[in-house]
């Protein structure tokens, strides 16, 4: 069962005087369990709208949206997905830990249980010591990590992320990308990720979905360079980034390295590899072709 299955999805906004705007048209997309898929394209190509359709925040004008084998609405009501936006959207009147608890609080989970889960999640995003602070006491990057922890509260099998790192500076952004990869790895969740940064899409994704505007449609799908835990860059057929001595002698398959954690070095290795730059170029050309 696919995490997301979109068939013939279209979305038309009626803007009144200026006539209808075709935000999405003929979208066909499948996201497999545990797969990381990025949506990339110029402003107005409907990538955010597409994500919002999956989240049941917008209704499609046509086509079918199936999320984890259910309708988008049922998936939302069952809390099958976690979501993060460009703005962290934390509630200032709640402490950091209470913000992470929010989804559980809304769904009536007992206090002790939700506090334990929130503490676990804060540890996962490396903010355990900031639990008692208010959101405004954190930097932008830390706030976004809290928002990601919040999106994981209900242990969703699908994460929807709408440019979550869009407002962060480049260095923070790279750190957050590595962290998100580690989290996706550890939780095994599928991720649908909207971005307008080509390197970000390539380093994070299994597949990069390239979109073009008016009407918003998918013009190309390109393989990304997502590093996996324990594999090292070489495990995915990427070499040259690390000296040979860093690789295990017997090239074991991914699953044979239990409990290994995706290290920042693995991600940095990808960023410096020739394959990464090749994929970046490929995406850039696809984008240019789509907008021509």
């Amino acid at each position, binding site marked *: 069962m696919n995490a997301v299955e979109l068939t013939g999805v279209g979305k038309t906004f009626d803007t009144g005087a200026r006539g209808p705007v075709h935000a999405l048209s003929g979208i066909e997309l499948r996201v497999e369990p545990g797969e990381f898929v990025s949506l990339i394209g110029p402003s107005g190509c409907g990538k955010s709208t597409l994500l*919002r359709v999956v*989240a*049941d*925040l917008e209704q499609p004008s046509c086509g079918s949206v199936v999320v984890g084998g259910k309708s988008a609405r049922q998936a*939302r*009501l069952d*809390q099958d*997905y976690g*979501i993060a*936006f*460009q*703005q*962290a*959207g*934390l*509630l*200032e*009147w*709640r402490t950091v830990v209470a913000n992470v608890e*929010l*989804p559980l*609080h*809304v*769904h009536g989970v007992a206090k002790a249980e939700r506090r334990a889960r929130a503490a676990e999640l804060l540890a996962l995003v490396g903010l355990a010591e*900031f639990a008692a*602070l*208010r*959101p*405004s*006491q*954190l*930097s932008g990057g*830390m*706030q976004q990590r809290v928002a990601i922890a919040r999106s994981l509260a209900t242990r969703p099998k699908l994460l929807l992320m709408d440019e979550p790192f869009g407002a962060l500076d480049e260095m923070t952004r790279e750190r957050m990308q590595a962290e998100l990869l580690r989290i996706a790895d550890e939780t095994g969740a599928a991720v649908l990720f909207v971005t307008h940064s080509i390197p970000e899409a390539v380093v994070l994704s299994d597949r990069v979905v390239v979109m073009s505007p008016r009407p918003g449609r998918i013009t190309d799908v390109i393989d990304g360079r997502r590093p996996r835990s324990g594999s090292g860059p070489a495990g995915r057929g990427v070499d040259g980034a690390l000296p040979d001595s860093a690789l295990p002698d017997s090239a074991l398959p991914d699953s044979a390295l239990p409990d290994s954690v995706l290290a920042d070095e693995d991600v940095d290795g990808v960023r410096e590899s020739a394959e990464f730059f090749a994929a970046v170029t490929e995406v850039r050309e696809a984008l240019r072709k789509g907008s021509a």
Partner: protein
Amino acid sequence: MTRPTVATAVAGPRRRPSLDRVWPPVAFGILALVLWELVVTFSGVPAFLLPAPSAIAAQVVAAFPTILATAAVTGGNALVGLVVGFVMGVGLALLAARSRIVSELATPLVSAAAAVPIVALAPVFTTMFGSTTEVPRRLVVSVVVVVPVFVSTARGLAQVTPVHHDLMTALAATPGQFARFVRLPGAVPYIMTGLRLAAPASVIAAIVAEYFGGLQNGLGSRITSAAANTAYARAWAFVVASIILGLLFYLAGLLAERIVTRTPTRREP
């Protein structure tokens, strides 16, 4: 995520009190007082125009027990009216946020009330409730207070950022949960701003209401009667008391606002 700093809407940006910011107003105040004293003493400004600060101070000392008693009456009226009006204003705004028809009916009435001299209702309230009780004046204060509290609270309740709206929808929250988790807590700073604006207004209303008749035991009627008896310095002494009472209410409102909406300082890792 920056929330609107409603707290600083009138008082201006909050800064640490440094000597650089404290001395100019203090110097100005002292200078103005000295100049006032000198001009009045040496240029023979008649007392009805402006009595000397020293004469006013002497009257404050001489009439201190009376001033205290009348200020207590006016302050009491202002306080009761403030509390009643605050509760009514917040309650009405909550109703208006829940129901569209209440909102559509209340909004024109409140915006009309904001433009209309509400204190003119004082003589009517006196006829309706009797001239021997404090009720008419307190009622005037309540009506005056309802306006800013309602406007401010309604604005706060309407102030939901799109991202919070999306978030709560994505979390499949019920409308009740939406109000409890987002709308109400988000409105608290605005409610407190309404209280801060209403607090000094309540004193002004309590004083002005006395100019329209009714019981004659508050600061407003003392100012009028002293002025009518050409005891100008004495009248100014009661004006000074009114100003101090107004400032006390303002500071109390400000303090309440700061306590409720204080934001902790940012801490970088």
